[in-house]
């Protein structure tokens, strides 16, 4: 098959899975701990940042995106991009409502 890029099916070893597992557990602990420190406007940012890191770890290693074709990475990116479009464009309405002329 000439067109779709073929490459051998990379088998991810348990070593990497264990590493990622520990990273995720540590991140969970940190995010729970961080919740008890009142960082004002930063606490939601930190919480979501840690969640994003955990999600990226799961996607890249557990879901093998790290080892699969560029098209798959593009698809995942397109999904999250559309989700962000929904969030930001809707909030752009709600945020700008307070600017005087409703």
């Amino acid at each position, binding site marked *: 098959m000439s*067109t*779709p890029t073929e490459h051998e099916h990379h088998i991810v070893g348990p070593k990497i899975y264990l590493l990622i597992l520990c990273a995720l557990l540590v991140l969970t602990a940190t995010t729970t701990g961080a919740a008890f420190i009142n960082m004002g406007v930063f606490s939601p940012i930190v919480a979501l940042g840690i969640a994003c890191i955990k999600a990226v770890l799961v996607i890249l290693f557990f879901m093998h995106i790290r080892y699969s074709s560029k*098209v798959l990475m593009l698809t995942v990116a*397109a*999904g999250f991009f559309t989700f962000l479009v929904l969030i930001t464009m809707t909030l752009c309405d709600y945020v700008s409502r307070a600017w005087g*002329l409703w």
Partner: protein
Amino acid sequence: MSTILNLPNQQDAQLPKLSYLNDGYGLKSWLLTGDHKRIAMLYLVSITFFFFIGASFAGVIRLELLTPQPDLVASDTYNKLFTMHGIVMIFLFLVPSVPATIGNFVLPIMVGAKDLAFPKINLLSWYLYVFAGIFILYALVSGGVDTGWTFTTPLSTHYLNTHVITAAVGVFIAGFSSIFTGLNFIVTVHRMRCPGMTWFRLPLFIWAHYATSILMVLGTPVLAITLVLVALERTVGIGVFDPTKGGDPLLFQHLFWFYSHPAVYIMILPGMAVISEVISTFSRKRVFGYTAVAFSSVAIAVFGFFVWAHHMFIMGVSNYSALVFSLLTMLVAVPSAIKIFNWSATLYKGSITFETPMLYAFGFMGLFTIGGLTGVFLGSMGMDIHLTETYFIVAHFHFVMVGGMLMAYLSGIHFWWPKMTGRMYPESMSKMSAVITFVGFILTFFPQFIVGYLGMPRRYHAYPPEFQVLNVLSTAGATVLGIGYLLPLLYMTWSLRYGKIAGSNPWQATGLEWQIQSPPLTENFIETPIMDHEAYDYEWLANKHEHEVTTVG
């Protein structure tokens, strides 16, 4: 097995002995088929059925609007009529029409594959479609739903006791049917192209369907969750859209239109796909500016997600976000203009013939241009204040959906009918019905622009007497349109039995699907084709005839 190398010319072509139609008989072979062509036929029958149900509602609506007084049906019956007309036409006809019937049939062959990537999911998509149809018919039969196809909250959640949840579940399931079709198309185009079939050798039909599938996969789930929230709010009584409990009904509008605007591109892009093929074939020329048309399909898909709030300009969204959405709406109008001009330029220096598909394509060009340009009326915020929620909007989207999409659907059905059934439709009768449809359409929907600017609101079944003349014209047009749509049903079924044998390539077209027998074999190709020429390469087709030996098997 003899080698049929040449395309048997028209007169003495016979129906091939073996094809997907006679590759198994009995209900089971049809209802449990994995073959994309048979599923396309199943879709064709069910879509036609639902089209005529939706069209009959439109007929009764137009009859009611003959007179200013509300005298034909009671007011809530009228509300149920236009709601069911909207739901059935959009979710059960327009969204699946070209992708599920012509797309399912032709896309794998055009790409050079034996079948779609997931045949079982393709069949599941048809069963979900039928299941959704049953739900919506059940909602209709057991009392109907009168929220309008837009399910506006808080009306749909707290102020109506009709079958809103049944209809919402029906639409929810229809959404998944279209997700699975889209999913199948994307994976097939990416993974199952035959050797040599690079992206820029794909017919423009595939590009447009690829763009449509992106919209289907990414847009439809938001409608699904919105309907789940509406159903939850109706059952549990507390929800996120209830203003008295602190909810914001505008959030429903945002989530609903986030899907429903890409949905209008889901409905029109497949129509553009058909038009690219038809105009190129009947002017014997490659589509002018192939890459421009291909990328404008993808541009419509990408920009389609940014513009939804132009449906909400007067609903109280903040003025600044209305500015942003209006600007982006103007940008999304440009790719459609590019496509129209490219199709017109394709005709330059072509050798044009005027068979029925081409007549429908010309109809599409004219009506879609008017529909698209009136979209710019509505995209500019100031004009939208006066025009929104009046009959101007009804005329606009009927020009795009019925004038654009339905004309393209009929053009596509006529164009690929020989390939699907092996038989030709009656040429003169179909030309007449095309003209009738065109005239009926103009007479129906053009007066609605005028009565729209006069301010006649949408979804009214009693209107001030001075609008009556325009409404009578529109109803007269509707009857002509009704005839225009009934004719193809009649002569197409007639042609199944008595139509001329079409042979493999009646139009001498260049698509891969025209290089195989019609109706095709179940596995489409004897051996996987190798694509070594550009998309619409009529020279390749021409000299393909010279050096071929003619042995008729």
